[in-house]
């Protein structure tokens, strides 16, 4: 082991964050001590407001790093970007000074009928060319790199010439943006579209990953549905463990958007991620702790 590796290894620490949700504002307004390293805010909830949400985000920003995570960029839309959206996002970015700005690798509908969903598109050279142009436009307008997240899908559009992981890797390498790797979405797609999640995980070079998401899905019987309404499943924790073992410095975020529990329950989820990080990179290896997470997190 060389010296620089040792130094980096010692200086690393788990960077586990939580999604900022209005239901927790009353708790967070009291500025409690938390075990949270950072918060992720849904950009759209704060970019068109001068009211309490913005006030709350600014308060959080005084104490924590904040990521702005959008759902409406619609970067894969053939109609192009909405200039007013990008302008509002830039304004929010300048106000908050986030450490990460991200959105999803998808389109969300047409401008005349927005579906407000994270929609699948075929992984083709046509899409790749379009995305490279749009990523360049957004990054220039914002004056920073963005991260794009892999989304859960329930169908595969016609005409793909790349596997999802090949497309993500090619896009990140060619555009200069990084990936927000949602391990839950990866697993959901692996089951829905019948591929080996480990193949996907190992195909993505860790230097292309700028952030990780963890969340829970709902098993609908005929498919897995990305609901963010439960703790992450053991299979997702196992994939996360494999990933974080290779990349200790990537920030990790626990997502929970439906049936949101008390803040302390989310903190416990975050602690699970920290325990797994410690298992791989901490001073003491606690194999039994890690094993118990995989066994009891259902």
């Amino acid at each position, binding site marked *: 082991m060389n010296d620089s590796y040792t130094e980096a290894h010692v200086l690393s620490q788990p960077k586990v964050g939580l999604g900022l949700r209005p239901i927790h504002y009353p708790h967070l307004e009291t500025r409690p001590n938390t075990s949270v390293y950072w918060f992720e805010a849904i950009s759209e909830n704060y970019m068109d407001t*001068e009211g309490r949400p913005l006030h709350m985000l600014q308060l959080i920003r005084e104490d924590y790093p904040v990521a702005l995570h959008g759902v409406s960029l619609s970067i894969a839309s053939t109609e192009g970007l909405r200039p007013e959206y990008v302008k509002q996002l830039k304004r929010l970015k300048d106000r908050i000074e986030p450490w990460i700005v991200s959105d999803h690798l998808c389109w969300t509908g047409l401008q005349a009928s927005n579906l407000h969903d994270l929609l699948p598109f075929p992984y083709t050279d046509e899409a790749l060319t379009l995305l490279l142009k749009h990523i360049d436009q957004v990054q220039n307008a914002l004056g920073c790199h963005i991260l794009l997240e892999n989304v859960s899908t329930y169908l595969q559009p016609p005409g793909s010439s790349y596997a999802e992981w090949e497309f993500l890797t090619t896009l990140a390498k060619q555009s200069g943006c990084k990936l927000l790797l949602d391990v839950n979405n990866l697993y959901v797609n692996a089951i829905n579209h019948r591929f080996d999640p480990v193949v996907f995980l190992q195909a993505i070079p860790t230097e292309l990953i700028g952030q990780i998401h963890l969340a829970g899905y709902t098993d609908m*019987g005929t*498919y897995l549905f990305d609901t963010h309404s439960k703790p992450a499943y053991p299979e997702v924790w196992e994939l996360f463990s494999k990933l974080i073992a290779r990349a200790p410095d990537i920030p990790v975020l626990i997502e929970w958007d439906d049936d949101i529990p008390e803040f302390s329950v989310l903190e416990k989820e975050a602690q699970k991620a920290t325990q797994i990080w410690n298992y791989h990179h901490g001073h003491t290896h606690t194999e039994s702790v890690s094993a118990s997470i995989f066994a009891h997190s259902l």
Partner: protein
Amino acid sequence: MGTLTLNQYQRLFSHTACRQDHEAPGARLVESITPGKDLTSFDALEVYRRGYLVRLTEALGETYEAVWWVAGDEEFFRLAKTFIQCHPSQTYNLSSYGEVFAEFLEKERPFPDLGFLPDLARFEWLFKNIFHLSQHEPVSQETIQAMTQQGNIRFQFGPSVHLFSSPYSVYNTWKLRGTCREEQPQPDWNIAQHLLLYKKHQQIFVKELQPVEYSLLENLLTGLSLEEALDNSLSHYPEMSQPEISQLFQVMIHTGIIQNIEGPS
């Protein structure tokens, strides 16, 4: 069948996800997609169509909570579905969806005996907008008192300060949302309400005004000077008395709605 371009695929997909119940999904799309896990192509597309309806209904329900309370679940969901089918979302921000819901209710008249529903919807849309407006710093009581000695002054109000009036008891009805509908006695909808909405300490307050106070404040909010506003209101309410005017000024001071005062030029 030739390969779809990305643009053709997105148009087909979008049309299918927004289609009405009786319409079949586009055959070209159904035949070309690969459904996930054990779904059929039709059901895979239904996941997206259902999700679209659910998300937009939720957005309407969040903004129009009191309309929902009055209408009840079944009727509100029916109204929301009809509204969504004739008004696709053109906004990027889901929480801004439903601006014309009041006009839709006006036209639809789902309950002929509940004529106040469009006004209730208008009140809720205004309330939502005020929530996102900035909180101003009110001028001090001392400044107000000193300036009012100077004669014909003009008031500048905070951006969150708005008036709302209705021939119906919109605010009283709105306050009932969240309570159990069955346990509430039938409210008397037919009482006119004149309301002042404003923000203080990042919270929205609603204050009921007398018609004469409302008239004077409405004139001041349009930018008329104090003298002009008094003249205008007196022409509509010749019986307006000094105590009523003083009472309104007490309200203006107490609520902190004044952001600035301009002296006579």
